[in-house]
């Protein structure tokens, strides 16, 4: 929810200043309604990368990932959570390895 609010604020302040963030539904299709276009999409992707420290160069981005505030939020959660999960998995593997060695 906190991310969603943050995303809405960025879109409404930087890309579509005529829209009040409080009125922007999280599930509205941002591209088909012209709230963002292909060029502001690039700005949005760069912002998400910097704001949430997500290495976009290593990730395959589907156009749908940035369709709505909800989808962007899910994308952010997926890439921040999956990194944690990956670290946990690696730790778990190390543990298993240590146990089997001992």
């Amino acid at each position, binding site marked *: 929810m906190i991310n969603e609010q943050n995303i809405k604020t960025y879109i409404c302040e930087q890309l*579509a200043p*005529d*829209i*009040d963030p409080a*009125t*922007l539904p999280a599930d*509205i299709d941002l*591209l*088909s*309604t*012209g*709230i963002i*276009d*292909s*060029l*502001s*999409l*690039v700005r949005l992707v760069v912002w998400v990368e910097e704001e949430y420290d997500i290495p976009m160069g290593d990730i395959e*981005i*589907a*156009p749908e990932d940035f369709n709505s505030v909800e989808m962007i939020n899910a994308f952010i959660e997926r890439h921040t959570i999956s990194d944690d999960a990956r670290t946990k998995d690696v730790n778990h593997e190390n543990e298993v390895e240590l146990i089997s060695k001992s």
Partner: protein
Amino acid sequence: MKLALLLNSLNDSAIHFPNNVAIITDTTTWNYKQLWSRVAQFESALAEIALPTHVAVAVTAHKTVDTLALMLALGKQGHTPLAVSPTLGPMVKPMMYGTAGVYCELAAESYLDQPVVNLIVPGKLQTDIVASAYSDNTCPLMLTTSGSTGIPKVVKLRAEGVSSFFNWGAGYFQLTRDSRVLSYAPLNFDLSLLEIWTPLAKGATVILADTARATQTDYLQALIRDGRPDLIQAVPMFYSLLCPASDAHDSAMSETRHVVFTGDTTPQELRERVATRFPQATFHNIYGCTETNDSFAYSANALEIIRHERLPLGRPIKGTAYRIVTDDGVELAGTGEGELHTSTPFLAHGYTDPKLTAKVFYTHSGRYRAYYRTGDRVARDERGQLTLVGRNDFIVKVRGVRTNLLDIEQVLAKMPTVKNAVVIPANDEISGVVLHAVIEPMQGQTLDGLAMRMFCAQHLPQTSIPRHFHLRENPLPTTSTGKSDRKTIALSIQLQRSEPA
């Protein structure tokens, strides 16, 4: 694509040059044998849809090899594909497909590398008269162009015209089996005829740019560096992204032989940057539209292309005739200005709606040939050279799509909260033309930017939705005759944009 020349040529390439590369994407390289067998796989997948014989089928134009294969498979089975933008609004489809006699809309996908045909809009048989239009082989492909009512017009291309265009394009740009052509435009644009279908008909290689990354400078530079295309055709926006003013690494790309500017006016300063990047290339300013395809070409070397403040239209392409018609409706004999009417060997049949065709296509009685009123205003100088002056009306190009400003204003004015709406085009370094809507509310009403965008999305193509909405509280300035004072409004936007953030 229902065109014997193309289908036979692809079959020949698959048999005699199976390992020649047909298409390069970011992830995969397809040789002619693989491409042709993909077409066959899509033919089998189509069997599950059970199409009636010889119908028009809309194809969601995702820019993929699978979409191309589906369009070819449809053509092989005698159907005429209509390439439609993946962002085409669901509200406009029923009316558009109804008048065009389109049976259904399909989209091509792969699942575990197997072709899948998805039914996007279910099948509906149109009236016999409309449907029978596709029973012969005279219309290989249909494309859309912006319509004055917000519903795209469907252009029926002519088989003979498309075949002639392939031969002209291959000859003019010296395409051979060794050539590599960049495809940057969306698949549903007429530019794809030169970028995709011509090279495939001639056994050359197409480099497909990824739509999702089409606005990233790094991606585009790598695409040209690694793909080494002989021919690049694109709108000015592509070149601004490829050659940004701030780019200190001016590495020359010397393998590209032909650089084509099209779709819009390319500013002199941008041409200078492009010429530095491609010092060995021949540059072309190509003028045309979906209804006529390319009709004029101005070709020059790097030194010559940067010399002009405005690029000339150049010479009519071989077989093209033109007329300049003045505001009085008479043909211009010498120097002066007027509307350009063209007659090219590539001329389309017209639109699927005969009433629309009758408005802009006509046969000149004295010359026994069909002309198309372009709506573009041109000037002819003492040397007979033509330059584009602008649109005859309020039509601008937004991201390559012809857009009528008055249509957008009319849609906005239908909102109960809106008293007056003026749409102003502004030039943007990267995007080309950006639309600003300036809105005056009905007394006592509050304006809501989100509601306006949603209203526009329901009634207009995506490119017609203004990027910026300026919601005013006071009446908009008017001229002495009571019309909206566009110049003053445009100036106020310009001043607002130049203010420090």
